[in-house]
């Protein structure tokens, strides 16, 4: 490691890092502060001014109950958990077989999944709408769950095949000798061993699905089924007719907090997910 010695250069580098640091942290703080203001304060005071007392914590309860964010929050939770779980199960099973068993077509199957990551998903938007419609899955959480689960399969298979291959073969052989079935070997030996890989994928998927907007907008028109990002989009469009800035920022804050907490707790797994996914 070569430490920069020139004090002026050092100062400049630090200044740049600090400025960028502020540019990423300040919006979070400012979202919270603006969530505590009433409309007048937005027009009267500068955008960076602190909220006046009394702080309007009521904006949060207002959004939570009047704007039905309690419903959207639960919808987002259900959809995210369901599709992450389903996606994980489907990709882990296939990845294990692709990593460990040779059969006719196995390598082309792997290629199919991996190369599908190159195809723009927008291409599927229109047909998905009609497909879901014909399956009566439009405006349902189940519809979103199956589409999201399917959209994360390729990434999961790609990363997990690599992960399973890196595990020593002796473990399975020992399990077989002990009389375990194929299924027993997978569920009791291999799956627990691949936990780090599974967790990494789960977290990356949770972040992506929680934040997803466009598929949600297309497949869901019924407000009772909205996820958080879909409602944020609707809410901001409504701001043209009724201005409720404080509640809008409260809504943004409610949407950000869960992913921010996940990031704080699982930073390392997220970083390894990025590097694993990028070695295509």
């Amino acid at each position, binding site marked *: 490691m070569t430490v920069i010695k020139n004090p002026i250069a050092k100062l400049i580098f*630090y200044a740049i*890092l600090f400025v960028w640091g502020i540019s990423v942290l300040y919006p979070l703080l400012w979202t919270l502060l603006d969530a505590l203001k009433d409309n007048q304060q937005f027009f009267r005071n500068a955008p960076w001014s602190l909220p006046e007392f009394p702080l309007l914590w009521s904006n949060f309860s207002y959004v939570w109950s009047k704007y039905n964010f309690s419903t959207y929050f639960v919808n987002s939770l259900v959809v995210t958990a369901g599709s992450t779980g389903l996606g994980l199960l*489907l990709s882990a099973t296939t990845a294990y*077989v692709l990593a460990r068993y040779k059969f006719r077509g196995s390598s082309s199957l792997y290629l199919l999944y991996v190369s599908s990551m*190159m*195809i723009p998903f*927008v291409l599927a938007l229109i047909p998905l709408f009609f497909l879901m419609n014909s399956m009566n899955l439009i405006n349902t959480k189940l519809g979103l769950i199956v589409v999201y689960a*399917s959209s994360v399969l390729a990434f999961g298979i790609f990363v997990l095949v690599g992960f399973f291959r890196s595990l020593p073969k002796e473990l399975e052989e020992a399990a077989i000798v002990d009389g375990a079935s194929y299924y027993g070997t997978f569920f009791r030996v291999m799956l627990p061993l691949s936990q780090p890989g599974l967790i990494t994928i789960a977290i990356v998927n949770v972040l992506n699905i929680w934040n997803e907007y*466009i598929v949600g907008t297309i497949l869901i028109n019924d407000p009772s089924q909205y996820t958080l990002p879909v409602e944020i989009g609707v809410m901001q469009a409504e701001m043209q007719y009724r201005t409720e800035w404080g509640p809008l920022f409260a809504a943004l804050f409610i949407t950000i907090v869960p992913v921010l907490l996940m990031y704080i707790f699982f930073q390392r797994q997220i970083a390894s997910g990025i590097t694993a996914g990028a070695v295509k």
Partner: protein
Amino acid sequence: MNSGTAKWQRNVFIASFIIPTLLFFGVFTIYPVLQGLYYSFFDWSGMSDNKTFVGLDNFKELFHDPIVWRAIGNDYFLVAGKVVGIMAIATFFAVALTRFGFRMAGFFRSIFFIPNVISVVVIGVLWNFIYNPQIGFLNAFLSLFTQEQVTITWLGFTNHTIWMLLPPAIWAGIGFYMILLIAAIQSIPASYYEAASLEGAGQWRQFRDITIPLVWEQIKVSVLNIMMTTLNGSFVIVWIMTEGGPDNSTQVMGSYLYQMAFRQYHFGYGASIGFIILVLSLITTIILQRLMRHETVEMS
């Protein structure tokens, strides 16, 4: 054990782990993608009984649609702007946070990633507020330096509004590629840098002759990834911030697809826009791969 049943058991196991996933993937990903290609040859308003085969008419119409050309131009503007902006800044941070021995490097690395975990919708709304003509950040900031209140409608220019979408897109993209490059730089053996130092190579020489060649593979992946995600997904931020306006001047192919299909119910036309997006991203991938090919260096 009978080898016949053993083989059968093995095959059942393989099938039970492969087929459900493949069916699922086939129905919810492959089938819609193929359908999308198929629909692009039809004139179709969404009701099944008035779907008429029109051959290449949609593509002919696309070719004469000035908005399509504008959208393609905007797409490539965003690709170029994001590639240059994101790669320059992400590389700078990646080097600064690994090679320069700064205290707090870990802290900066953690917080620089934050925009990447936030939904694009939220980012779009936040930046809308920055650009808001009456109560926005940017005008309030500029007003500090002027006599009169600044009231620029940042997202309302007829010609250059697309420039306004570049800062949020770059801001939101840095962290991901920075993490990727940091991992790559950290895998370079320290002895390379030590040897270079001993021979008197400064920071800049080390960067140019060691870091860049050895992380070229990751740079390539990053550039391709930026290009693909931009052609494929940049329309979400466009849609949230401008809906392609004013007067279609910030339309990109994705947002135009969305508008044509789900706002104006020209589903066939929308599908053919999707077809063009696929073709463009494949062609661009090939061109970029050729352009960036020769520079890979194997680490021994």
